[in-house]
């Protein structure tokens, strides 16, 4: 069965968001037991808190889709190996969401589509040659699902990171994480033990600090940030 065929079989109940087992199997790339799948759904509902699971409001469906995505990414680690599958799953969640009514089809829920866009951005990062960074980001999405106090990933910040890496495919791969705002941050430890840190702001600017052989700090547009780091071997990459 292809993913697109599977998507045609998507079902959506009126009271809860329920992913189709066959669809998830195709996207996860391994057999999925119904029990395990429903555990993931229940876990997502637990995250949403029991009292909020009632009538299938657009907001609830969107939240459910997002949390099921995260729980599944934790339950099925192979999703981490293949950002394309994760992206498809994100799209699938968006598709399910968009099928709940004709009006929703023309006005996709922003929260759900944000999940799909995040998957797309991870693919962009992978396509730019930063496979490890893409894997770290998917792990990060899972970690956020585990801890209700973690901030949500800022899609605009992720977009900024993806654009930066795509514009500089020769850079060494950074380690990526999240700051308390949900903005993506990236760190590079250079051969001379200098540390370069960038926080990707949601407005195409980057806040940057370098400590070590050359100290520098500043906030600049993405296209100008490497100029600031020119004295370091990093800037020449």
């Amino acid at each position: 069965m292809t993913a697109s065929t599977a998507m045609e079989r998507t079902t959506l109940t009126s009271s809860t968001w329920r992913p189709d087992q066959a669809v998830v199997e195709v996207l996860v790339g391994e057999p999925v037991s119904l029990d395990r799948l429903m555990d993931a759904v229940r876990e997502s509902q637990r995250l949403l808190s029991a009292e909020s699971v009632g009538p299938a409001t657009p907001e609830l469906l969107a939240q459910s889709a997002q949390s099921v995505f995260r729980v599944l990414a934790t339950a099925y680690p192979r999703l981490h190996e293949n950002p394309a599958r994760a992206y498809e799953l994100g799209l699938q969640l968006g598709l399910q969401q968009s099928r709940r009514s004709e009006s929703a089809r023309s006005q996709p829920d922003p929260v759900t589509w944000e999940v799909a866009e995040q998957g797309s951005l991870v693919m962009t990062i992978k396509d730019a040659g930063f496979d490890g960074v893409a894997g770290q980001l998917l792990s990060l999405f899972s970690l956020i699902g585990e801890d209700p106090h973690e901030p949500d990933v800022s899609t605009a910040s992720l977009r900024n990171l993806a654009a930066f890496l795509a514009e500089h495919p020769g850079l060494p791969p950074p380690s990526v994480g999240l700051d308390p705002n949900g903005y993506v941050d990236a760190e590079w430890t250079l051969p001379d033990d200098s540390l370069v840190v960038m926080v990707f702001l949601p407005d195409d600017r980057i806040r940057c600090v370098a400590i070590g052989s050359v100290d520098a700090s500043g906030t600049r547009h993405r296209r100008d940030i490497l100029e600031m780091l020119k004295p370091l071997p990093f800037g020449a990459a």
Partner: protein
Amino acid sequence: MILVEGEHLPRSDHASRYLSSSRLVDGLPRATAFTRAEGDTCPISVNWLEQLKEPDRESEIGRVREALAPKLTMTKRGRIVVLNVGDAIAAVEDTSSCVISFVHEPEEGDDSHAGIHGYPDEDKEQELLISTTLKRLIAADDVYLALPSP
């Protein structure tokens, strides 16, 4: 020496901070581990370890876990990291234009609670610089499991 609330921690003493998994890289703090969310002007929360009067570091960390448990959802991937107060103050003076201080601010059920003061509220670059500086002081030996192994 007995300190009262609001007094500065001695430079020879140590402070710990809980970090969730997204603020760690390879088990060590990320550079943004000691930054605050936009609009947050509160001091960075830490615990003053010597105030706990325990015989060793493991016991101190155990007490910190107990104090934090009602306030935070600590996860098995989270870590508690330890800083020397004097080293932190000196390093930040060295790399930034700021002067930080560690101030005892006990809370209900958390007597050893303290805050790192001196962060500039309007200068996020300096805040990132401070945080990056503090991160570089913490080695693997200064990192403890947030939830002890069973």
